[in-house]
C-alpha cells in the first residue's frame, strides 16, 4: 500500500509519519552533534563506479533505470559509495558526514523484504582508526538506545585480523592475491584454499603442453594460433603471461595444511571480544604467523570502546561477521532487536579503508561508517 513503508504500516501519513520524522531528527542531531556534516547524495548513480566496487552481482540487487541514450543508472543501494565520492570530490580530510534518505534494493520475487527503506548514517574518514571505530560504534548504539531499544543484541568482528593472517601465512604472492581478491566470497575462498593445499591435479594434455611451452612466449603464441583465430580484446601476450604464471604456480609447494586449517579456524572464532583476541593471538603464534599490528589495533579499539562506556571485553565477537558484504576490511558490527526475527538488523557498520582505491584514489582512505534503519528501529519499539 502506498501509505505503508518498510516495517511500518501507515508510516507515510499522519501521526505515524510525524513520529518517524521525529526519530529521524533525533538520530541526525546525534550524528551532527558528534561533528558530522550533513550531506545529500543523489539517488541516481552512473553504473561504472558502483559496478567497479560491487561487481556484476549488483545488478541482481539494485534497481536500474535507463537514460534516453541507453546509459544505465543505478538507484543507490546504499550510501557508502555516494558519500565517499562526495568526500573524495570535496578533498576534505579528516571529515565526518551524516545522511538520511531512502535506498532501493531489488528483492527476489515473493520476498517480504522491502524494496525501499530509510538509512540514517554516519561516515568518518581519515581519523585514528581505533578511536573512530569506537566513536561510530558508540554513536550507533546511542541512536538505538535513545530510539527505544536499550539493549540490542550485538555482534562484532574484525576482518582486518583475518586479512592480516592471510598476509602472514607463507605462500606465493600470486596465491595470496587470489585469496585476497576472493575474501568476500567465502565458498570460492575456501575452494582456493583447498586447491592450494592439495597435491596438484594431473594436468590435461593441453595444460601439459602449455606448461612445457611456458618458458617461451613464442611457443605459447604458436599453440594459441594453432587452436584458433584470436578474437576479442585478450591478446596473445596475456595468454603467454598466464602460461608463465601457471608454470610458476605448478612449481610452488602445496600450502601447508596447518596454515590452511589456521585460516579456517580463525574464521570460525566466536567468543567474547577479549577471549577472541587471546584465542586469535595464540593461534597466530602457534602457526608462526606475525600479526602483531592487527592484534594491537584490536586491543586499542577495545580500550577506546571501554573509554566510551562500552563493556568491550564482553562484546560478542564472531570473526566472519559481515564477510559476505564486499568491501569491509576491518572492524564490523551489527545490532539487532532482541526477539524480533521479523526485523532486519536495526544498525550495522564497519571499516572499509580499501574502497577508495577501488574508486580510483591513489591511496587507501581510512574510513568507517554505520547506518541505522529508522523504520525498523521504530517498528521494534511498537
Amino acid at each position, binding site marked *: 500500500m502506498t501509505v505503508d513503508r518498510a516495517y511500518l504500516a501507515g508510516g507515510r501519513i499522519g501521526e505515524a509519519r510525524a513520529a518517524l520524522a521525529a526519530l529521524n531528527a533525533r538520530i541526525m542531531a546525534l550524528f551532527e552533534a558528534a561533528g558530522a556534516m550533513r550531506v545529500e547524495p543523489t539517488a541516481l548513480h552512473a553504473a561504472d563506479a558502483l559496478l567497479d566496487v560491487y561487481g*556484476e552481482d549488483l545488478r*541482481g540487487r539494485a534497481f536500474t533505470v535507463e537514460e534516453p541514450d541507453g546509459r544505465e543508472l543505478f538507484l543507490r543501494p546504499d550510501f557508502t559509495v555516494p558519500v565517499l565520492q562526495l568526500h573524495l570530490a570535496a578533498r576534505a580530510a579528516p571529515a565526518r558526514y551524516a545522511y538520511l534518505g531512502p535506498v532501493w534494493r531489488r528483492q527476489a*520475487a515473493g520476498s517480504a523484504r522491502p524494496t525501499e527503506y530509510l538509512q540514517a548514517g554516519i561516515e568518518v574518514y581519515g581519523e585514528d582508526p581505533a578511536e573512530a571505530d569506537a566513536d561510530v560504534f558508540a554513536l550507533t548504539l546511542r541512536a538505538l538506545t535513545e530510539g527505544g531499544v536499550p539493549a540490542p543484541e550485538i555482534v562484532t568482528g574484525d576482518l582486518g585480523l583475518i586479512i592480516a593472517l592471510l598476509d602472514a601465512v607463507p605462500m606465493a604472492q600470486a596465491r595470496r*592475491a587470489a585469496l585476497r581478491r576472493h575474501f568476500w566470497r567465502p565458498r570460492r575462498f575456501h575452494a582456493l584454499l583447498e586447491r592450494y593445499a592439495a597435491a596438484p591435479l594431473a594436468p590435461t594434455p593441453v595444460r601439459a603442453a*602449455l606448461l612445457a611451452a611456458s618458458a617461451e612466449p613464442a611457443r605459447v603464441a604458436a599453440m594459441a594460433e594453432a587452436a584458433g*583465430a584470436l*578474437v576479442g*580484446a585478450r591478446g596473445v601476450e596475456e595468454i603467454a603471461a598466464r*602460461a608463465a604464471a601457471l608454470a610458476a604456480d605448478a612449481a610452488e609447494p602445496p600450502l601447508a595444511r596447518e596454515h590452511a586449517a589456521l585460516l579456517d579456524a580463525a574464521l570460525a572464532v566466536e567468543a567474547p571480544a577479549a577471549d577472541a583476541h587471546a584465542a586469535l593471538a595464540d593461534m597466530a603464534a602457534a602457526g608462526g604467523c606475525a600479526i602483531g599490528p592487527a592484534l594491537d589495533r584490536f586491543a586499542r579499539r577495545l580500550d577506546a570502546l571501554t573509554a566510551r562506556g562500552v563493556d568491550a571485553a564482553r562484546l560478542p565477537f564472531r570473526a566472519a561477521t559481515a564477510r559476505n558484504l564486499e568491501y569491509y576490511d576491518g572492524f564490523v558490527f551489527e545490532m539487532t532487536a532482541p526477539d524480533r526475527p521479523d526485523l532486519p538488523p536495526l544498525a550495522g557498520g564497519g571499516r572499509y579503508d580499501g574502497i577508495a582505491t577501488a574508486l580510483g584514489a591513489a591511496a587507501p582512505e581510512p574510513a568507517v561508517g554505520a547506518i541505522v534503519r529508522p523504520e525498523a528501529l521504530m517498528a521494534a519499539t511498537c
Partner: protein
Amino acid sequence: MLKLGLPSKGRLQEQAVETLAAVGVTVGLAGREYAATAAGIEGVEPVLIAAGEAPRALAEGDVHLAVTGEDLILERVADPRRVRVLKRLGFGHADLVVAVPAAWVDVETLHDLDEAAAAFRLRHGRPMRVATKYHRLARRFFAEAGVADYRLVDSQGATEAGPKNLTAELIVDITSSGETLRANHLKPLADGLILASEAVLAVSRAAEWSSVARLALNDLGARMGFNAADAGL
C-alpha cells in the same frame, strides 16, 4: 477454453505439433495468420506465440499452457511461483554454455577464466565483457562458481560474433552442435555447462482457470503422461 501457446514458427513448432498429434490432438495451422485450431480434444485453443514471448505470456496468465524452451522459462520468469514445468518434451535440446576463444589455450575451466579475468582487468583497466541474452542465468552461474571481474553486455542476436567484433571477450549462449561456436573461433569451457535445456510444457498459475480449462488440462495430462496436479492450481 484452455489457451495453449505453441511456437509461432520453425522446427520447434513442427515438433510441438507432432508431439500433440501423437496423443490424438490435431493442430490446424491457418497459413500466415497467428491463429490455429485443435481437433480431437475438447476445450483447447492453440495460440501461436514467438518462443521468446511464451515465458511472459505464462507469467501474465495470457495463456494456460505453453510449449517453449526451458532456458527461456528460467531466464525470463522472474517469479517462479507463477510458472511451473509440467513435462520435458524430449526435443529442442540445446545447451547453455560459457564459451571463450579457442585460442585461449590457457583457459579450460571456470577457475582458469576467473584467473584470466583478474589479469585482464589489471592490464586493461576494465573487466572482461561477456556477451549474452541470458543475464539472469549467467550472473547466477558466475556467482556460484566464484567468477569475478566480468561485465555482462547485452546481445540479442549473433552473440557468437561478439568476440570477433570486439564487443566482448567471451559469451554465454545456447549451442546444440557446437558448429556455430567453432565457426566463430570459440570453445565451451569444460565445466561451463549452465543448463542442458530442452522444450518443455509449462503451466501458468497466474491464468484464470475455468472448469473447462481444468478438464482440458486433466485430459492432456492423461494423454501426454504428466500429472495435472503438479500444476498446483
